[in-house]
């Protein structure tokens, strides 16, 4: 595929969103040569997204904000350079626009007024390049995997033949298999087209083999309100000079060791999560808190049958396996939210509301509190209050605590999660990592003996990731049982968690 690589130049560029007082970015200077492949890094809030939106020309006009200096693609203002820049975003769900695969890939070309015959020629070429060439153009986009969707988004952008390819955390929401698929597709694309590429990603090692330059955005001085370029150079040099800054800003810097939070390790002693220290006395390490007896689970029809598993206090269990195998459904069944298709989920007798009511699905919603908690993959699915402080107090209040008691628990929870300054903020306005912490905090406020988590580290930067690991270790060391659905090998290793592998059998 023939593409003319684009040159990018930022000259004292800055942008202030109309709703904000301070510039998000200011005095940004760099020149990217045609065909260069750049990794753009920076802590969350450093202005990476603003930079990418600026390059893509989707920041909007004068009503949306104020621009300083200049940002040009091949000498043309980025806002006017329609079609010279292609942007692939993070969320695979929101990037598919049309129902049929071929139509979706053709959408960008239509908007650029490409003649019909050429559109389909470009669509086929692009789909071949990203490895989707074997699929029928009429295939529904609905049932594609995450990795396939991101590759389709890439193909749709590629068909527009942009000189500059922008990738904004394209693999953050994918499982390990999807990450490899997208990486390989991008590599093949840039090697065949020679396009200029800018990629934003926390997981540096994913892209290290194809970038030849690293630009770091951040605060030029501590306390300065606007972000700017704080490092720019070859990957090795930048990582050597900036490794600590980058790691503390949330990047997964190559060669850094992952902290060790296995049971009894020194690091895991550092954090205390719960006030109540007497909790451990209720539970005995050798009797399971939660058990599956001949369990069949699924929505409607059974995905897995005859499952017998025990979960113990003070233990972290990781449910692992391919996407779509039913791990989340299984987790919801354990959490007493979905009825088993057959068999039982049983809680330890001493934890049940009554000795003959050991099956969580038969409990009232309130009876789950203090016993089993569920942290959803999408924190936003969980929010129920308008303020962060109320959000955390929801559980204790439902358990029948007084207002004062509930808010006392909420306040100490917020402090431990480092969220106190957001107490009066709306949960939806928090950043991704903060939302995740809040969703865990609000579940922990009800002091569950069993905590079920769905992908607790999905799409997180290194800082949030480390916090999550610390937190899970602390919950475990307080004697609770943690069950988590995850693809994250590093997480499982750091906690030395027990693994339960989901694997596909032959069809019965």
């Amino acid at each position, binding site marked *: 595929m023939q593409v003319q690589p684009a040159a990018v130049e930022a000259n004292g560029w800055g942008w202030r969103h109309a709703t904000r007082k301070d510039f998000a970015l200011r005095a940004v200077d760099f020149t990217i040569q045609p065909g260069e492949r750049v990794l753009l890094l920076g802590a969350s809030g450093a202005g990476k997204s603003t930079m990418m939106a600026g390059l*893509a020309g*989707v920041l909007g006009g004068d009503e949306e904000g104020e621009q300083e200096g200049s940002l040009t693609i091949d000498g043309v203002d980025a806002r006017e350079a329609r079609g010279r820049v292609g942007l692939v*975003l993070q*969320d695979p*769900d*929101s990037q598919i*626009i*049309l*129902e*049929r695969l*071929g*139509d979706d890939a053709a*959408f*960008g*070309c239509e*908007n*650029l*007024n490409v*003649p*019909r015959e050429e*559109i*389909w020629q470009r*669509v086929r070429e692009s789909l071949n390049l990203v490895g989707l060439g074997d699929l029928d153009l009429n*295939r*529904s986009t*609905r049932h594609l995997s995450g990795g396939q969707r991101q590759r389709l988004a890439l193909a*749709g952008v590629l068909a527009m033949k942009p000189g500059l390819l922008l990738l904004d955390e394209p693999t953050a929401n994918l499982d390990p298999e999807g990450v490899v698929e997208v990486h390989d597709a991008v590599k093949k694309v840039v090697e065949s087209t020679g396009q200029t590429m800018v990629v934003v990603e926390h997981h540096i090692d994913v892209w290290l083999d194809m970038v030849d330059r690293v630009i770091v955005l951040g605060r030029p001085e501590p306390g300065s309100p606007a972000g700017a370029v704080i490092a720019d150079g070859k990957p090795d040099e930048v990582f050597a000079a900036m490794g600590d800054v980058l790691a503390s800003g949330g990047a997964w810097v190559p060669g850094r060791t992952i902290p060790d939070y*296995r049971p009894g390790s020194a690091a895991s002693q550092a954090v205390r999560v719960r006030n109540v220290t007497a909790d451990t006395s209720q539970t005995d390490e050798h009797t399971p808190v939660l058990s599956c*007896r*001949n369990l069949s689970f699924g929505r409607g029809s059974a*995905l*897995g*049958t*005859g*499952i*017998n*598993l025990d979960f113990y206090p003070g233990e972290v269990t990781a*449910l692992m396996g391919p996407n*779509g*195998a039913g791990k989340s459904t299984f987790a919801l069944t354990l*959490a007493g*939210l979905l009825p088993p298709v057959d068999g039982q989920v049983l809680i330890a007798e001493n934890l049940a509301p009554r000795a003959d009511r050991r099956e969580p699905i038969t409990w009232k*919603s309130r009876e*789950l*509190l203090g016993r089993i908690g569920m942290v*959803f993959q*999408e924190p*936003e*699915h969980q929010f129920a209050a308008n303020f962060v402080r109320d959000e955390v107090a*929801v*559980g204790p209040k*439902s358990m029948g605590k007084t207002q004062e008691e509930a808010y006392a628990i909420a306040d100490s929870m917020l402090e431990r999660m480092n969220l106190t300054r957001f107490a009066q903020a709306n949960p939806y306005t928090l950043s991704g990592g903060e939302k995740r912490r809040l969703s865990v905090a609000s*579940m922990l406020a009800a002091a569950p003996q069993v905590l079920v988590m769905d992908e607790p580290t999905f799409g997180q930067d290194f800082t949030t990731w480390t916090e999550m690991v610390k937190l899970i270790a602390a919950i475990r060391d307080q004697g609770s049982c943690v069950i988590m659905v995850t693809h994250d090998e590093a997480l499982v290793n750091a906690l*030395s968690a*027990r693994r*339960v592998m989901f*694997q*596909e*059998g*032959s069809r019965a």
Partner: protein
Amino acid sequence: MSEPVQITVQTNETDSAVSGKTETATISDYVTVSPQDSRVEPFKPASPSWFVARINPVSRIIGALLLCIPMFFSLDLVSASSALAIEFVLLWIGGVAPWTVCRKTWPVWIAALGSFISVFLYARVSGEILWSAGWIVISEGSFPLALATAIRVAAIAVPGVILALGLDPTDLADGLVEILHFSPRFVYGGLAGLRMFTLLQDDWRALGLSQRSRGLGDGNAIMRALSQAFGLLVLSIRRATKLATAMEARGFGSDAPRSQARVSSLHAIDWVFYAICLSIPFAALALAIATGNWHFAFQGA
């Protein structure tokens, strides 16, 4: 207690040389799940009728309008039932058997029954009053009028529903833009929004489950649904914003000229279809006039 059936429990001493720091044994259990469906999609026909499947989606909408407009002018049993009869016969020729038509249009028949009951009980008096109680007045004219109304509802709605079955939204959008020259910004924006509904269904389910897990699932069902609906509203706005950015990033939404990857045009078969759609109601009305049953709908009793 039953023995484990399908899961094999194995103990794996993980090789400490590999992971370096793992000294404690990691036990792996296996859960065997049924394989994912090989994701073969069943072929979805554009219409249950071979004839309708070949015409342009825009023609289907226009055809449904042509069919029903003349039917508004007469309120009599003959025109309504003859139109319905012709429709059933033509649909049969077009590949949809009468029992299939009835099965696929069941809501129409409920609506028809509803209109029958209300006209029967409350219609304007014509002829001798047979029975009355309060607002309910049943007169001699009630029954034929109610029957005529019910059949007319069916005659108008049945072909409309059958024509809409299997209609592909993308193809319809193409037709609206290319044939009727609607604004592509409006049409394709709406089309992309339509896709969001599947995602919102999942959101709704997750919101419900999370309420239960947070101890909020016991109270008043109406209050619960309201707060769940608010959560859904917030999520839908966020999803819509993301979708808009993705579309803008692909060059959508400017005033620059736009090309169409797919051709949507009218062919001879579409004109044949229009002719059929016009001839059905006119034949039915002619029959009503010829048999002396014409009853102008806007004239009163």
